[in-house]
């Protein structure tokens, strides 16, 4: 094995610059003549704007410009778009209210953008922003997800009666009803998937520069997908034609989905820098991140399962009301629909599934993809419901899962909800996880805990998710405005080192290492001679960016394909140089050799020959530089079983996660250390959602959890050491045999934690976040019932 190739835990190449403080984030970039922007934001959740008086702000020291929605409209810029169409039950496309980048006559959530104030310094811009006098007529606000569509509610958008964006029924309703009618038992559960603030460490930022000489705008953004930003800003927001717009996503300090979307601030900064002919920088602060980054989750659901007398699942029925917030963020519509309902089969062979999703508008921040996007919501619902089924049938949670798992020999497995799972061995992951968690030793541990006054509980979660987003034709059919292939260019320089250009974007995932390992493995080039380049539309070919754990599964394959092309070309060049037939050339470990001889040529020598083609095969182009685009034929389907063990202090309700075991199937691991890091982070995210994180608005629409004083993020001391292992299968649809690992923990963990708490307390259900008070109350109730 190549010591830095596939399967090696190579230390992250990018960490050198991060650890010595030489990362280059958007806010680190300063340019001559730069101005500073501050946004005036709505303090009200819902209000008409009767007038905006900018005169005070314009007269303030250092102010360069104050621009409002009228200026934006006059220049024909915007509005922001939602890129995926979902057809509502009336056959019409989802209701899409106008989404101006600066308010036009109305604000719809606290934090909504009203004006941009640009000044010589940031402090001056902040001072002046306070002087923008906005005359509001405050309207009643709609906040609560569950009641947003109730009759009598204030209507937020003219185009959306009852505040409904879409009603989206999916599946065989009649078949499901018939199965329920004939079922031995029906288990039912009402549950909430709590709203989260995504919270990347680096707040969003934008720096716009306009060059009047070339008529080009350069936008440095905190983006997970620079080309998608460029495309949307050009084609839909009229900022500038694609060839006159450069988008750079330099080092980006985490995204978790929140930096996929095209935000108002980004468009406005890009437009403003051209308007005032000076660079404009906006650096969002943490409060703005809480108020105006897209949030995640926020579902209210009812789930039912029909079973036969053996606990076999016959049919599942789901009703979900999903909050999309005040406006449609870039990919919002697809999250509670395609990314959710298509995952409702979970790991089970449930033959019939019917779901109804009602997506609603509220006067809250827009809701869009957040780590897992739709799949955590689906998994939480399925895995909680399965535990309820087990309780109702008197079966062990592991046993009911086993009875309903899709059998190993059924793969590829066509679910009743569109997806065709590539590969899986669900019993293997369950067995391994139970062993890792010492499942059979649990009752002894629970007894011991009892002697200390603690309630110990254990919970399983057998999740499946869809990664490697996505086959273009499939998403096109569903109403996406883009294809979801990925691109790569692998370029040898004449001296034999390699630059790899990827259309994905690394913002913490370690692509610069993992992708270098792929190339190192395939081409035999030393890893230190490989540089991975991403994130700049002026440097890399069009690419779709990073989200949905797609970078390796789709982007990695594109790199491998480009390497294939280099090897094929290299064989021609080597054959000529070694005076052999092309068919006799073999390539291994970086060497082209003539089969059965010791005649060989290193790939670096081949590259040199290609650039200095003095003696060269006829008909072969000079240069050693290949590109490839890869459009997957299927999603990939990582899966696994996570087992969480908790101890509850019944006197206070405090939950301690004492043991956490995860066995995942990610297919082949390229860098096990990086994968482990992704699993750790994902589990922390999922435990955070289950125990700590709850985004909360008051009835007037003020965000109560607008800082870390009130929004609880998971910290090291909230988590145990994780026990992690793998039960890989080989996905036939992925040429690299990889599946994706970035979201698994956030998907698998929440139900594992809540199942464990329910088990500890002996209660049917407890909603997330299971805060000490909620748990204490549940414990009190359980004690009262059993007394």
């Amino acid at each position, binding site marked *: 094995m190549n010591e830095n190739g596939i399967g090696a835990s190579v230390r992250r190449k990018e960490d050198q610059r991060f650890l010595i403080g030489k990362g280059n984030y958007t806010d680190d970039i300063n340019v001559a003549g730069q101005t500073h922007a501050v946004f005036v934001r709505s303090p009200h959740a819902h209000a008409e704007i009767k007038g905006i008086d900018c005169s005070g702000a314009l007269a303030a020291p250092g102010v360069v410009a104050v621009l409002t929605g009228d200026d934006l409209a006059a220049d024909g810029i915007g509005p922001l778009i939602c890129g995926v169409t979902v057809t509502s039950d009336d056959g019409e496309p989802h209701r899409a209210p106008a989404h101006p980048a600066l308010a036009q006559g109305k604000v719809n959530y606290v934090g909504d953008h009203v004006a941009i104030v640009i000044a010589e310094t940031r402090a001056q811009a902040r001072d002046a922003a*306070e002087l923008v006098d906005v005359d509001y007529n405050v309207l009643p606000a709609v906040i609560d997800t569950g009641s947003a569509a109730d009759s009598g509610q204030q209507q937020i958008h003219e185009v959306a009666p009852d505040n409904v964006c879409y009603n989206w029924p999916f599946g065989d309703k009649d078949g499901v009803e018939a199965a329920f009618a004939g079922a031995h038992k029906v288990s039912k559960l009402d549950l909430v998937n709590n709203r989260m603030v995504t919270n990347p460490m680096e707040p969003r930022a934008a720096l716009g520069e306009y060059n009047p000489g070339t008529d080009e705008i350069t936008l440095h953004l905190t983006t997970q997908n620079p080309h998608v930003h460029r495309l949307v800003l050009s084609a839909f927001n009229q900022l500038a034609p694609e060839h006159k717009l450069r988008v750079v996503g330099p080092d980006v300090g985490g995204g978790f989905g929140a930096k996929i979307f095209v935000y108002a601030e980004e468009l406005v900064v890009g437009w403003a820098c051209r308007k005032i002919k000076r660079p404009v920088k906006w650096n969002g602060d943490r409060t703005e991140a809480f108020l105006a980054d897209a949030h995640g989750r926020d579902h209210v659901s009812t789930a039912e399962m029909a079973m036969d007398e053996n606990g076999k699942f016959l049919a599942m029925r789901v009703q979900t009301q999903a909050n999309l917030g005040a406006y449609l963020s870039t990919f919002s519509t697809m999250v509670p629909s395609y990314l959710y309902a298509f995952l409702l089969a979970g790991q089970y062979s449930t033959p019939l599934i019917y779901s109804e999703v009602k997506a609603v508008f509220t006067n809250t921040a827009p809701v869009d993809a957040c780590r897992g996007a739709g799949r955590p919501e689906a998994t939480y619902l399925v895995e909680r419901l399965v535990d309820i089924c087990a309780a109702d049938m008197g079966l062990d949670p592991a046993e009911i899962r086993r009875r309903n798992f899709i059998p190993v020999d059924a793969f590829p497995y066509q679910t009743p909800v569109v997806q065709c799972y590539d590969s899986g061995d669900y019993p293997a992951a369950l067995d391994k996880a139970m062993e890792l968690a010492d499942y059979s030793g649990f009752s002894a541990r629970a007894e011991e805990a009892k002697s200390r006054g603690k309630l110990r509980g254990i919970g399983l979660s057998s999740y499946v998710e869809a990664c490697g987003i996505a086959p273009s034709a499939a998403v096109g059919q569903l109403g996406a405005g883009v294809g979801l292939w990925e691109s790569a260019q692998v370029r040898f320089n004449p001296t034999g080192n390699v630059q790899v250009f990827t259309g994905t974007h690394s913002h913490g995932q370690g692509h610069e290492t993992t992708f270098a390992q792929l190339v190192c493995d395939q081409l035999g080039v030393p890893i230190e001679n490989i540089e991975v380049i991403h994130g700049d539309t002026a440097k890399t070919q069009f690419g779709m960016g990073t989200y949905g754990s797609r970078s390796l599964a789709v982007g990695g394959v594109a790199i491998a394909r480009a390497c294939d092309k280099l090897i094929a070309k290299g064989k021609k060049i080597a054959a000529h140089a070694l005076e052999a037939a092309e068919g006799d050339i073999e390539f291994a470990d970086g060497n082209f050799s003539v089969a059965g001889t010791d005649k060989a040529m290193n790939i670096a020598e081949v590259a040199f020959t290609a650039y200095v083609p003095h003696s060269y095969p006829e008909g072969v182009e000079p240069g050693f530089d290949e590109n490839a685009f890869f459009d997957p034929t299927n999603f990939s389907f990582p899966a696994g079983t996570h087992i969480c063990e908790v101890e509850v202090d019944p*006197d206070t309700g405090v939950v301690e996660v004492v043991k956490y075991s995860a066995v995942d199937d990610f297919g082949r691991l390229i860098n096990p250390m990086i994968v482990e890091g992704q699993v750790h982070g994902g589990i922390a995210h999922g435990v955070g959602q289950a125990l700590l994180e709850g985004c*909360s608005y008051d009835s007037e629409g003020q965000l109560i959890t607008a800082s870390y004083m009130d929004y609880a993020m998971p910290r090291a001391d909230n988590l145990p050491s994780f026990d992690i292992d793998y039960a890989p299968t080989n996905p036939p649809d992925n040429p690299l045999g990889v599946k994706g690992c970035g979201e698994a923990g956030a998907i698998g963990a929440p139900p594992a934690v809540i199942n464990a708490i329910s088990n500890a307390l002996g209660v049917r259900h407890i909603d997330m976040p299971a805060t000490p008070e909620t748990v*204490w109350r549940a414990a009190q109730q359980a004690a009262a019932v059993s007394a």
Partner: protein
Amino acid sequence: MYEFNYRKVDSVAAAVEAMQQAEDGKFVAGGQTMLPTMKHRLASPSDLIDLGGVAELTGISVENENLIVGAMTTHAAVAASAEVQQAIPALARLAGNIGDPAVRNRGTLGGSIANHDPAADYPAAVIALGATVQTSKRAIPAEEFFTGMFETALKDDEIVTSVSFPLPEAAAYMKFENPASRYAIVGVFVAKTGGEVRVGVTGATACAHRGFRLEAALGGELDAGGIDAVELPVEQMNSDIHASAEYRAHLVKVMTKRAVEACQ
């Protein structure tokens, strides 16, 4: 942050004088509360008078059965102090669990009690230990010092110079942390000093206070047997998204019991 004048002083007298001259001045100690408040534009003092250079305000000593801690002594210094660990270990532990290392290395005892955040830790100890707050003007008994939410008996130009804690026979602090801020949702400090058991409660209500009902149930003994039966006035408890009034009232009792047990 709005503009302000920065004043560096080297004595208590100079600090008081600077304050008297300022239009709307504020003292700054560790700045761990003051500066975030200013950054969020919730406070806009005309002058910030920095007590950081006033040597007479720092230091830890034990005199006449009292532990005396200078107002500018940081939480980290209290936590690490051999004198404090020896004299009142519960106080050292309390200080060592405030905020995070950055906060502990800047934040001070004087700043904490002068600020009187209803969720701050120190006030519970100051009250339960029957401490005396020494200021530039007078000596204030603990029970008269904390007057309401973010309010104390201090006058605008009055500086806390030190706090003197009578040495207890036994003491313990139990904190129920807010999962987000890690301030006290409820903090209970129990101390037995000179044969008397006192309970100081923070976090639960608008103002740190003595838990008289709890003390009555303890009856001067470190025996928590009677605590469960105590009825606390739920309507006076704070209530927020992290803990309702009812839950806080419950936690006060649980923390009291645990503090009493830890005293033994």
